[in-house]
């Protein structure tokens, strides 16, 4: 931690940033004029009687038709009053009720025809939550929060660039491209967290080799088992070859967790060596393993819950449509589970790798420390 000048000055800075951010969020709430698609604000809603619905699986539901009056708030037709209609169901899988005050995107206005609601304007809620995250970061974490924000922001930009590169290469393999990008991701993130130091190089080496090892082992397992029981048709939003896409997703998904773990282990080992310079290579290796084994369980669970909880709505829909547990699992959850297993392997294998690399590299040239 660096030395802070005056705490009060710091707090004023934070307060100003937080308030300024709040104004920006307010701006997003009224940013309709910058959209080219027409947006209307709902002024009144009249609900008709609910209509009972029953499907072939005997699910009971009800739909409600809404007659909506709205006023356009952007484009050259601003101020024009229009009528819209909407039907929503009680379950609301692909529809939703609208209320007075909602801003909605509508289809282009054509004379004599009613326009349709395309969907609600959702950018304000995104802005609000982003603002809350950033404010909390500054309030609790100060400069560390700023670094965290910077690395997430830069990674998001890189992520976007990588997708563009992938799409511009007509015959590019998405897995190869994202493997290369992963190296950049890891280097950039660790550089921001640790600075350009010996510790960073060791952490980076360990992260990359641990992840690579897990992927290589998984590919061997794929080949040996002929990918039996893998259902690529269960993947969502697939527009390219599913297999490399699945591997790229798994690689990216586990990268952050492996970096997290390697950073913790290497940091502890460096501290240990600073306290006891005579510590042996073997002791370093064993300490690394000790730190690793208490982190690995929770870390694998982090990824597992992210990968599998996300399939909740679709899984429920499958079950409600009369599919049995086996088929439902296969189509929705099986790929997420395999992804968790591969990531888990990466997280576990990184522990001996990082402990080994750190114990060898740290002890090799103790004289030329710090700077590489």
């Amino acid at each position, binding site marked *: *931690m660096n030395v802070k000048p005056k705490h009060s000055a710091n707090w004023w800075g934070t307060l100003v940033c937080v308030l300024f951010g709040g104004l920006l969020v307010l701006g997003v709430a009224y940013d309709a004029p910058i959209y080219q698609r027409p947006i209307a604000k709902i002024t009144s809603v009249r609900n008709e009687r609910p209509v009972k619905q*029953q499907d072939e699986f005997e*699910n009971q539901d009800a739909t409600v038709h809404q007659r909506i009056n709205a006023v356009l708030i952007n484009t050259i037709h601003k101020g024009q009053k229009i009528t819209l209609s909407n039907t929503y169901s009680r*379950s609301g899988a*692909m529809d939703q009720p609208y209320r007075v005050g909602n801003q909605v995107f509508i289809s282009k206005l054509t004379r004599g025809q009613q326009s349709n609601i395309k*969907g609600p304007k*959702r*950018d304000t*809620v*995104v802005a609000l*939550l982003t603002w809350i995250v950033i404010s909390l*970061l500054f309030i*609790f*974490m100060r400069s*560390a929060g700023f670094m*965290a924000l910077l690395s*997430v922001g830069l*990674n998001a930009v890189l992520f*976007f660039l990588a*997708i563009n590169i*992938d799409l511009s290469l007509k015959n590019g393999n*998405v897995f190869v491209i994202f493997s290369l990008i992963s190296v950049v991701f890891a280097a950039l993130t660790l550089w921001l*967290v640790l600075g350009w130091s010996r510790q960073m190089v060791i952490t980076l080496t360990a992260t990359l080799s641990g992840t690579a090892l897990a992927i290589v082992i998984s590919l061997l*397992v794929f080949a040996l*088992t002929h990918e*039996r029981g893998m259902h690529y048709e269960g993947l969502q*939003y697939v527009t390219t070859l599913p297999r490399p*896409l699945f591997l790229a*997703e*798994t690689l990216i*998904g*586990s*990268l*952050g*967790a492996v*970096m*997290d773990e390697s950073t913790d282990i290497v940091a502890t080992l460096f501290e240990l060596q600073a306290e006891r310079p005579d510590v042996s290579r073997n002791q370093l290796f064993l300490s690394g*393993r000790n730190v690793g*084994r*208490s*982190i*690995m*369980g929770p870390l*694998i*669970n*982090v990824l597992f*819950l*992210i990968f*599998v909880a*996300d399939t909740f*709505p679709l899984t*429920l*829909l499958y*079950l*409600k449509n009369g599919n049995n547990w086996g088929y439902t*699992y296969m189509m929705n959850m099986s790929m997420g*589970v395999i992804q968790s297993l*591969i990531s*888990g*392997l990466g997280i576990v294998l990184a522990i001996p790798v990082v402990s080994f690399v750190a114990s060898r590299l740290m002890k090799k040239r103790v004289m030329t420390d710090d700077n590489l």
Partner: protein
Amino acid sequence: MTTFSVLALLLFLAMWAVGGKQGAIAFVSLGVNFALLFLTIVLVQFHLPPLPVTLVAGTIILAVTIFFGNDDDNSTTTAFYASVIVMLLLLLFIVPVEHWAQVAGFGDEDSEDLEGMSLYIGISFLKVEICTVVLSTLGAIAEAAMAISSGLSEIETQQPTITGKRLFGDGLNVGKQIIGTTFNTLFFGFFGGFLSLFIWFVGLRYSIGEVFNDKVFVAELLMVLLSFIGVLITVPMTAAVASWRWHRRPHQSQKQPAVTKVDVDE
């Protein structure tokens, strides 16, 4: 043998080899958590109220994640209390945000997956979405709570004269050290899963305005942001629980001011 069984076996062996008994138990926690997730979905399918079911399942998932494979009683208890409180606090956030954002259920991009299915299933997808977000943040909350509480437990052992207030400040300091890497774990964890969705957006040339109002994208982004908020609340909450529990415990020299210098910045 299927790919799944070989990978599961390898993961078990690796966890056992690296972590011994502790590792093997951590592997079991994965299986138990999966069973709990599936059970939650099945109970919701039978029209049990989604939120209470999720809160009960969530509490058990937190307990399993924290207590399985960790044997330090002091730090696990602190982490468990803190993470349950954070789950409840986060819920107060998630409910209004999901109502407002209207991102429950499925978007236009899901049409292909939904072909031939009946959507009128009589269970509110809004409630299901709230449950999904709660469940997907639990791992991150448990992990952050464990990191802080085990750090503090170490400090408690080394400095038995520390005051509760100092302990709270130390908790925030430990939080500063883990926040960068924790955010990256979440960022990559979530964005890895949505790679295909992003390729779809870029490939079909969605404009920025379209992306930030798209139902599927906003749903996923809110999940990431709410997990960030969950982790951010976890840091002071774990520090507070640790310092509260430290305060209540009888010790030898509570009144004595701590001699060690700790850099707390307030």
